[in-house]
């Protein structure tokens, strides 16, 4: 089959969604199909730009190329999943979140702060409600994303899990004296919450952060909190690291901290499980909660510095317990039977 994977991306930003799109294309090619990525640039501000981009996507034509039919379009991200096609299947990574569950989020909510925000929110919701059902089938990344789609748009869908890139290359090593926090540095990943928790810890807990900052401002904000709380010797900023470095950092950490706001899915949880490490997450972290079993494969804290600090202290002092939880996480990953072959089969049927 000739397959196009249609997504949107912000130029110069590479995160989980971009990796997923590449992996999906590679999985189609590995299964003997011709597959290509179409990525439409997206800019979400000022709010009026959003309807422009919806319209731009609706104006594109991926039905055929040089007279040859394109057999299937797989839509991933808003607004690219709205590109029309008679044989489209949506595998929804997420809707435009600040028009939905993040609308009035105190840090992430951006539309709500603009005079035309409510109007634009309604336009987005209407486009999703009316146009998502054009697809032959709707899958999502996780139960969490399916739940939101049901709740806000009244559309049913099926969750379809995918493995992180190079899943087979993760390994376990001796636990060192640091927690590992790998994520893009941005408000909703809540690096700041982990830093504030650090200030509340009884133990001399250390955290290694890896990941690119969305903007220099985001990085500066975190660095300022560290300075203000005088934690410089207990925090390390590694920035962008290679895949090898990332796997080594997983292998040698004591545990992984992953405390985002209502994450869609979260490769970090799965990568920690593959590395046999326990995960500390928060009760409002979304997708991570589909995998972390509290006190069995990790700890689920309340999203407050105090609660998170307690979880961090507890793993820091009970290292044997941490190792056992890591092993249980690895076993759980195996039981879930997450594979690209399964994803490809579902998306093409």
């Amino acid at each position, binding site marked *: 089959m*000739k397959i*196009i994977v249609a997504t949107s991306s*912000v*130029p*110069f*930003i590479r995160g989980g969604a971009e990796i997923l799109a590449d992996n999906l294309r590679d999985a189609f090619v590995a299964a003997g199909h*011709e597959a*290509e990525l*179409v*990525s*439409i*640039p997206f*800019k979400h501000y000022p709010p009026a*730009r959003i309807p*422009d*981009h919806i*319209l*731009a*996507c609706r*104006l*594109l*034509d*991926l*039905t*055929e*190329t*040089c007279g*040859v039919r*394109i057999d299937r379009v797989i839509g991933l991200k808003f607004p690219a999943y709205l590109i029309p096609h008679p044989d489209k299947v949506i595998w929804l990574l997420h809707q435009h979140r600040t028009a939905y569950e993040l609308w009035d989020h105190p840090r992430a909510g951006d539309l709500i702060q603009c005079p035309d925000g409510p109007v634009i929110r309604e336009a987005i919701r209407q486009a999703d409600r009316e146009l998502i059902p054009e697809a032959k089938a709707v899958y999502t990344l996780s139960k969490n994303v399916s739940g939101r789609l049901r709740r806000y748009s009244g559309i049913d869908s099926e969750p379809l899990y995918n493995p992180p890139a190079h899943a087979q290359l993760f390994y376990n090593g001796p636990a060192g004296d640091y927690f590992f926090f790998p994520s893009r540095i941005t408000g909703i990943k809540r690096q700041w919450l982990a830093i504030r928790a650090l200030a509340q810890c009884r133990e001399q807990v250390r955290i290694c952060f890896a990941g690119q900052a*969305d*903007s*220099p*401002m985001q990085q500066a904000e975190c660095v300022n909190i560290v300075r203000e709380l005088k934690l410089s010797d207990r925090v390390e900023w590694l920035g962008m690291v290679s895949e090898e470095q990332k796997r080594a950092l997983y292998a040698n950490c004591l545990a992984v901290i992953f405390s985002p706001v209502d994450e869609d899915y979260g490769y970090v949880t799965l990568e920690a499980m593959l590395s046999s490490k326990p995960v500390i997450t928060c009760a409002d972290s979304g997708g991570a909660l589909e995998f972390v079993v509290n006190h069995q494969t990790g700890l689920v804290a309340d999203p407050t510095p105090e609660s998170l600090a307690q979880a961090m202290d507890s793993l820091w002092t009970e290292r044997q317990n941490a190792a056992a939880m890591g092993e249980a996480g690895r076993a759980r990953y195996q039981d879930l039977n997450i594979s690209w072959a399964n994803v490809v089969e579902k998306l093409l049927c």
Partner: protein
Amino acid sequence: MRILIATVRVPFVTGGAEVLADGLRRALVDAGHQAEIVAIPFKWYPPERILDQMLACRLLDLSETFEVPVDRLIGLKFPAYLIPHPRKVIWMLHQHRQAYDLWQHPLNDLHTYANGAEVRAAIHRADTELIPQARGIFTISRNVAFRMHAYCALNATPLYHPPQDADCFYTRPAEDFLYFPSRINPLKRQDLVLEALARTRSKVKVCFSGPSAEPGFERKCGALAQESGFENRVEWLGAVSEEEKRDLYARSLGVLFPPVDEDYGYITLEAMLARKPVITCSDSGGPLEFVVHCQTGMVAEPTPEALAAAMDELWEDRRRAKQWGDEGRQRYDDLNISWGNVLERLLE
């Protein structure tokens, strides 16, 4: 600098434009910039889809990402070069040729649609009004600049760039064949060369390489060779690797490149790098900016007879062929074609 390259892409088709975009991106990264390609999918039929896609491009916003400015947008292909940006330069590969120099050309079809003329007028208007929004207008060749001036009365500066892996070309003693590397396509005119072969005095041999996307035209070429009974003087290699291609250039007696009004034409430059003379036609466009008649190759009228005469001349005087090839290489070196030059102009 943070730089975006804006182009369009026909899904599942890779050609010179994709090679160029990627070459430019790599040159920018090597020079220490952050650079990415934004490729909008393009479908040119039915004609009203062109208008949709022009509008889609105008609706995109590449001015900044997460509040960090994009310092430069480099627009390459229609309609992606119409994407607005406060710091845009256009390095035009070509306009939508069906609306310009190829309008009513037998190999194209825009004029056959009921709304063809209307869409053509809209393209002309968009180009004429929106191209000047760029702060610099460059083209990949004089030919493309000349067309834009002729049709849109806009001035542009030609900016030559080297073929892929220019450093890897080399030469070898000439063997008994002329080399014609190109996609097998009516615009490249493999058929004209076959008709010329039927008229040469000498038993000239031609080696063709290149992928074929058009089975109809490929069959026509096969039939032409068979009819004339000179199948043993023609070789079809299909798609070849870059190494094989450079080897074929190196061992050839000369290179045939007679396309219809080519925008630029890497083949001319590759032949010059391999010290081989080039036979082209007086209506071939880009190659005429490089081939000096009877000095680095030959420029023939686009008729089988004239092309046959040029092929015979090269075939029969090997010493002169070699001399012209050497002069071609000298000319390439004198032109000072480099990515460094290109970047300097695009980023100034």
